[in-house]
C-alpha cells in the first residue's frame, strides 16, 4: 500500500524516500499516461494537433494561474477531500460506501437547518454546532446501511445507493416545503446566520476584530498545538530531551498556553497588516484548514489508535478479526457512521462557505459523492494521499472551463481523463507493461479494497 512511508522508522530516511517514490510512481505514471491518451483523443476529435497545447495550457492556466484560478481549484478540492476520506474510511473497513452523495445531501440539509435555526449564537458556539450537527446527520444516514449489514448481512452497496435516493427526495421535499424561505421566489432554504458561516478568507481580518471570534481561533490553535506537542514529546527525537513524564506534560501545557495567548493577542493584529487574501470576490474559505485537519485526523485514527486497528483488521480479514475477539458488527456500524459523518461535513462546508445564498438551493451537488470514489481509489484509500488526489480532481474540474473556452474542446474530456487515470491506477499491470517494469513479487500482494458479496 502507499502508506509504506508512514511505517518506516525515521532512521531509515533514504530508503523511506526511495520507497515513497516507488509508491508514487504508479499513480504519477497513470496520470501521465491518461494525459497523453487525452491528448491523442483531443487531437483526433478536433482534427487538429495544435488544439492539444491550447487545451492543456488553458487547463493549467485555468486551474492555477488565472485570477482566482488556484482559489477556485481549492474551493473544489475541499469537499472532495472530505467526501473521499469518507469513501476511503469505508474501504479500510472493507466497506464500499456509495452513499456518500446522499450523506453529503443530508449533511448540507442539516447544516442549512441548524445554521438558520439560531441567530444570536456567537460563531464560537454556532459554527462548531452546525458542523457537529451535519456530521451527526451524515453519520445517521451512513449508520443505517451499516446496521442493516451488521444485523442482517444486507449488502451496503445496495442499501447506500437506495439511501441516496431517499436523501435526494427528502432534501427536495424539505427544501421546497418545510425549510423553504417563503420570502424568496427561488426554491431555497432560509439564509443561515452569519455566525454559522465558514469564513471567507478575505473576511478573516474583519472577523477577528470580534474578541469572541479571536477566542475561537485561539482555542482551535491551542487544541492543534496540544496534539502537536504531545506527538513531539512522545513520538519524536525531542522525547530524549525530557527525563520525566511530568516534564513532558509541563512542556505541552506551556506550549499550548503560549500559542493560545499569542494567537488571541497578536493574530487579529497580524491579519490586519499581513494577510494574503484581500480579494473580496475570492471564494476560498477557512475550510482550507479543515480539510487537511480532517485528513490527518483520519490517518491518525486509522493508523495510531485501537479503534483504527480494529476497523482495519475487520476490513483486511473479518474471520481473523472475529477470532481475535473483535466485534465485527460494531465495527461495521462504526465505520459507516464515521464515513457518513465525513460526507456530511463535506455537504455542510458547501452550504456554509460556498453557496452564494448561504443556504441550500435545489440540485446542490453535481456528484461530489461519486467523484470521491474515484479519488479514494486513486489515493489507494490512503488518508494523506487523498489530499493530492483531491487537488488533482479539483484542479481538473476547475481548469476544464477555461480549457473549453479557449480551445473548444468539450470539458467532458476531463471526465475521460479522470476515468483513464482511474483505469490505470486500478490496473497497475497496464502501466507496468507500458513502462516495461518488471512485476515485483510483493507488488501483487495488495490488500483488496473491499470484500465481495456475502460475508
Amino acid at each position, binding site marked *: 500500500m502507499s502508506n509504506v512511508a508512514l511505517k518506516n522508522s525515521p532512521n531509515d530516511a533514504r530508503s523511506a524516500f526511495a520507497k515513497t517514490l516507488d509508491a508514487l*510512481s504508479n499513480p504519477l505514471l497513470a496520470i*501521465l499516461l491518461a494525459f497523453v491518451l487525452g491528448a491523442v483523443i483531443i487531437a483526433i476529435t478536433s482534427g487538429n494537433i495544435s488544439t492539444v497545447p491550447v487545451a492543456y495550457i488553458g487547463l493549467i492556466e485555468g486551474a492555477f494561474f488565472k*485570477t482566482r484560478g488556484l482559489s477556485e481549484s481549492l474551493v473544489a478540492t475541499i469537499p472532495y477531500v472530505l467526501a473521499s476520506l469518507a469513501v476511503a474510511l469505508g474501504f479500510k473497513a472493507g466497506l464500499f460506501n456509495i452513499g456518500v452523495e446522499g450523506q453529503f445531501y443530508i449533511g448540507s440539509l442539516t447544516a442549512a437547518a441548524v445554521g438558520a435555526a439560531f441567530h444570536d449564537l456567537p460563531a464560537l458556539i454556532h459554527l462548531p454546532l452546525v458542523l457537529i450537527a451535519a456530521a451527526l446527520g451524515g453519520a445517521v444516514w451512513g449508520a443505517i446501511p451499516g446496521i442493516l449489514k451488521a444485523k442482517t448481512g444486507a449488502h451496503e452497496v445496495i442499501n447506500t445507493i437506495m439511501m441516496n435516493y431517499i436523501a435526494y427526495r427528502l432534501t*427536495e421535499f424539505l427544501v421546497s416545503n418545510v425549510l423553504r424561505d417563503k420570502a424568496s*421566489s*427561488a426554491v431555497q432554504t432560509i439564509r443561515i446566520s452569519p455566525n454559522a458561516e465558514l469564513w471567507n478568507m478575505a473576511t478573516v481580518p474583519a472577523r477577528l476584530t470580534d474578541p469572541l471570534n479571536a477566542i475561537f481561533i485561539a482555542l482551535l490553535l491551542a487544541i492543534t498545538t496540544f496534539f502537536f506537542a504531545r506527538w513531539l514529546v512522545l513520538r519524536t527525537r525531542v522525547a530524549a530531551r525530557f527525563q520525566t513524564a511530568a516534564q513532558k506534560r509541563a512542556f505541552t501545557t506551556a506550549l499550548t498556553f503560549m500559542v493560545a495567548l499569542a494567537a488571541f493577542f497578536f493574530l487579529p493584529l497580524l491579519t490586519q497588516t499581513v494577510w494574503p487574501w484581500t480579494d473580496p470576490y475570492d471564494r476560498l474559505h477557512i475550510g482550507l484548514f479543515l480539510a487537511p485537519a480532517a485528513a490527518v485526523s483520519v490517518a491518525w485514527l486509522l493508523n495510531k489508535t485501537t479503534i483504527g486497528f480494529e476497523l482495519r483488521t475487520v476490513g483486511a480479514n473479518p474471520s481473523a478479526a472475529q477470532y481475535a475477539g473483535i466485534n465485527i458488527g460494531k465495527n461495521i456500524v462504526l465505520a459507516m457512521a464515521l464515513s457518513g459523518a465525513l460526507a456530511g461535513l463535506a455537504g455542510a462546508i*458547501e452550504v456554509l462557505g460556498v453557496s452564494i445564498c448561504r443556504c441550500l438551493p435545489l440540485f446542490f451537488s453535481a456528484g461530489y459523492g461519486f467523484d470521491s470514489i474515484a479519488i479514494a481509489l486513486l489515493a489507494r484509500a490512503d488518508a494523506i494521499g487523498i489530499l493530492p488526489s483531491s487537488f488533482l480532481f479539483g484542479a481538473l474540474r476547475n481548469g476544464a472551463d*477555461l480549457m473549453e*473556452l479557449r480551445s473548444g474542446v468539450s470539458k467532458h474530456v476531463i471526465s475521460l481523463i479522470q476515468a483513464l487515470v482511474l483505469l490505470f491506477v486500478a490496473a497497475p499491470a497496464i502501466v507496468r507493461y507500458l513502462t516495461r*517494469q518488471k512485476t515485483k513479487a510483493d507488488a501483487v500482494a495488495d490488500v483488496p479494497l473491499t470484500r465481495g458479496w456475502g460475508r
Partner: protein
Amino acid sequence: MSKRVWFVIALALVLALVIAACAPAAAPAPAAAKKKVGLVTDVGGVNDKSFNQSAWEGTQKAAKELGWDAKFIESKQPTDYEKNIDQFATEKYDVVVTVGFLMGDATAVKARQYKDIKFAIVDNAYFPTKDSVACGDKVKDCYADGGLTNVTSLMFQEDEVGFLAGVVAGGMTKTNTVCSVSGMEIPPVVRFVVGYQNGAKYANDKVKTLNTYIPSFIDPAKGKETGQSMIAQGCDVVFGVGGNTGNGGLLAFKEKNLIAIGVDVDQYNTYPEVKDALVTSAQKNVDTAVYNFLKAVADGSVKAGYNTATLKNGGIGLAPYHDWDAKVPAAVKDKVKTATADLISGKLATGYKP
C-alpha cells in the same frame, strides 16, 4: 526499476514543455480586438431543446451578424454560477448573458464586480428585497441606485402565452381534464402554469386542471412518470413546463397518442420525437430577446432595467399548429384569436398575481 520510471516521467515532462513551447504564441491579437460575448447556461445545458438552447441560438445569430466571438459555459450546479461568469470576465469578455432565474444572485454580484461588462439575465428581474444578496431593500430601484447599472433583465409575460396554450388545451380536451408537468416552482414557471389553467377554464368551463411541480429541470424520467400518472387520472392534454423534465411529460403523452403542448421554443423543431402529439408550443422568444439585447449593446442603445416581452410586442406567442392545423377545430382557433386580441387590449386578464 524506479530509475527507469522516473526517466520516463522526466522525458514526458520535457516533451510537454516542448509541445507547450511550440504552441502558437498566445493567439496573435486580431485587428481592432473583436468583441466577445459569453453565455452561461443553467444546469439544463445548451442542448435542452428549450430556453437555454434558444438563448444560445440568439447569441450565435447576433454574434455572426456583428462579427463577434461567442462562447458558452454550461453550469453543473448552483455553486458554479459565480465561477462561470467570472471565467468570462477574467478572459476579458465584453458581454455576458446568463440564462435563468436561478442565476439572479450570482449575476448581480458579478455585475457589481465588473462594471465594464454588459450583463443580460434571462427570466430574472431585480426588485429591492430584504436580506437579498442581489439587491437589498435599502434602495429604490435595483438598476438605477442599486448598483446594477450594467444589467438588463430579459423578462417574459409567460402567463399570457400560457393562457393561450390553456385555451387550446381547454378546447381540445375530450375528457375535460388538462394537466401540466412543471419544473421547479419559480416565478416564470408559475406564470406559465397559472395562465394555462385560467386559459383552459376560459375556453371550457367544465375543465379540471392538474399540475405537479417537480423540483428539477433536468429529470425527464420523473417528468414522464408524472405524465403517466396524469394520464391515469384522465388527463388528455399536457403542457410540459420545465425544460427536460417537461419534455418527459410530453413523451408520456406522445406514447399514448394523446395531445401535448410544448414550451419556450417551437418544440416541433427542437424535439421532433414528440412532434406527432404536439399541437402547439407556448413560445417565449428568448432568442429574439437575447438577439435584440446584443444588437442594442452593439449600437450603444442598451439600457439597464428590465424589458418584458408580451403578446403585444410579439416577444411571446403560440407556435404554429404544424401537422395539427387541420385537426384543430376552427372554433378553438377563433377562441385563441379572440383571447389574443383581448389580452393585448387589456379586456382580458390572465389571473396571475405575483
